[in-house]
């Protein structure tokens, strides 16, 4: 891919980001920050892509740390967001992870 193509993608993605977020109600700002936070954990792909090219103990060690960090970011981020959002549903069951069959009565 050429640099120009990639910059075009970058610019379009920026507009998508602005557009999607400008419609979020205040209420959902915390889960949203947490959710977008999980998405940038995608950088874990960089660690995966570079691992086979790594030379020496230092680079291997660094990439294992990078993958671990990225995984914490992704897995932790999505789980925490899910827990937070689970609380926004109006229901009798106290624990959010039980069921999400209550689509209809979400308020």
């Amino acid at each position, binding site marked *: 891919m050429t640099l120009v193509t990639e910059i075009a993608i970058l610019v379009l993605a920026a507009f998508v*980001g602005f557009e999607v977020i400008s419609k979020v109600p205040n*209420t959902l700002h*915390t889960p949203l920050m947490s959710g977008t936070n999980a998405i940038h954990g995608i950088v874990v*792909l960089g660690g995966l892509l570079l691992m086979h090219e790594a030379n020496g103990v230092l680079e291997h060690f660094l990439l294992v740390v990078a993958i671990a*960090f990225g995984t914490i970011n992704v897995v932790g981020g999505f789980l925490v967001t899910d827990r937070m959002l689970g609380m926004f549903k109006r229901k009798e069951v106290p624990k959010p992870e039980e069921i999400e069959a209550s689509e209809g009565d979400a308020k």
Partner: protein
Amino acid sequence: MIAPAVFLQRANFIDSLYIVAFSLFIYGMSGLTGPRTAVRGNKIAAAGMAVAVVATLLTPHVLSGGSTPWLMALGVAIGVAVGVPAARRVQMTQMPQMVALFNGVGGGAVAIIAWVEYRHHFAPGYFPLKSEIPTLFAAIVGSVSFWGSNIAFGKLQEILPGRPIKLPGQTIINGVLFAICVVSAIVLATGTHSQALFIVGILLAAALLGNMVVLPIGGADMPVVISLLNAFTGLSAAATGIALNNTALIVAGMIVGASGTILTNLMAKAMNRSVPAIVAGGFGGAVAAPTAGDIDRGPVRSTSPQDVAIQLSYARQIVIAPGYGMAVAQAQHAVRELERALEARGVEVKYAIHPVAGRMPGHMNVLLAEADVPYDLLREMDDINPEFSRTDVTLVIGANDVTNPAAKNEPGSPIYGMPILEVDKSGAVVVLKRSMASGFAGIDNPLFYDAKTSLLFGDAKQSVSEITAEVQAL
């Protein structure tokens, strides 16, 4: 499986999977904009992440080398072992710190990947500028984000003092550090001889910069800082994507960068602060501003749960203004009980939600939602402010700076101009507080000395429970 591995490894197929992945991110994120679709939106985004990881593992040569898959598995296993219990166990009140920490490790991953990418490409002496510039950008921004987020975590977790920590000439030092980062990066990008340790120097300078930028920022500004660092990590991930020619990274990183910027601005606007002013350190002239001891504001009036219960029970309308104190005391369920007890007596109860009450925007909404408070009772600042004049009693639970009338009346106050909940317009104000200590921003609050204000000292949860018991006994 019908498709042979050869087909699966075709570049087009993998690129298509990346397109599926980022479409899922965008679709998922638009789901996150409404309470009804948010849970599903988050899951869709997570599914997108799974697709992106699978696509990466299918890329030719990525799994080559005997130890490669094992080292990857090791990294993922460590990440899951740390991330899952942390996410499961964290209390809703500690959510802002958790987000700061998750953001920090993301930034750390970006910085480390940039380091390895640099080492790897530098050795043969060939590193096209198209990859090198984004790599250096990612190294600097990732490192700033990692260290800055850790400091933010330390401040919110109260490992570090929440007050601004300032050095003389802070702004100049930051400027010099930033210049060192940029100049070193330029030297590296234009140099031809081996400078393998140079990148470590850049990472260290950026680390120092991350520390120095966040340390002088007061705890009250922390949500804005976390949001800003979140956007930074997104941008650095996008830069990594350009260096590695990976569309999923570019799109996902940039969306986070863009949305994070918007969120940061929304938050800063709600506090009547500008992002540059926050980053420049502390509350503007905090050193010269009057501190708690400087002005004699007269005595405060303290009250008892019995008196508060009577005040509330015979009111027509009361407003509850929660703040970080409610979060710390885990009082949201007790507050909901009180609301029910009052409603049973025919009192109309509403909640006033300041956009930056607590430590993050929407923090109070999350906590009150946890306690099953219906959405329609939560009123945003602009909706509730005209209501205060019709309100008999306002119950301020652990909120301080967001109710501080000095923001309107005292041009010398560091928070002058910040929009506040105008609780002082209501008939009476009851403030639940642990002690007379000032708020997170470290600013005295004249509301407490107002003639119609009474204070109930003690743990918010216990105080609210006692009031509820008294209301039910009446």
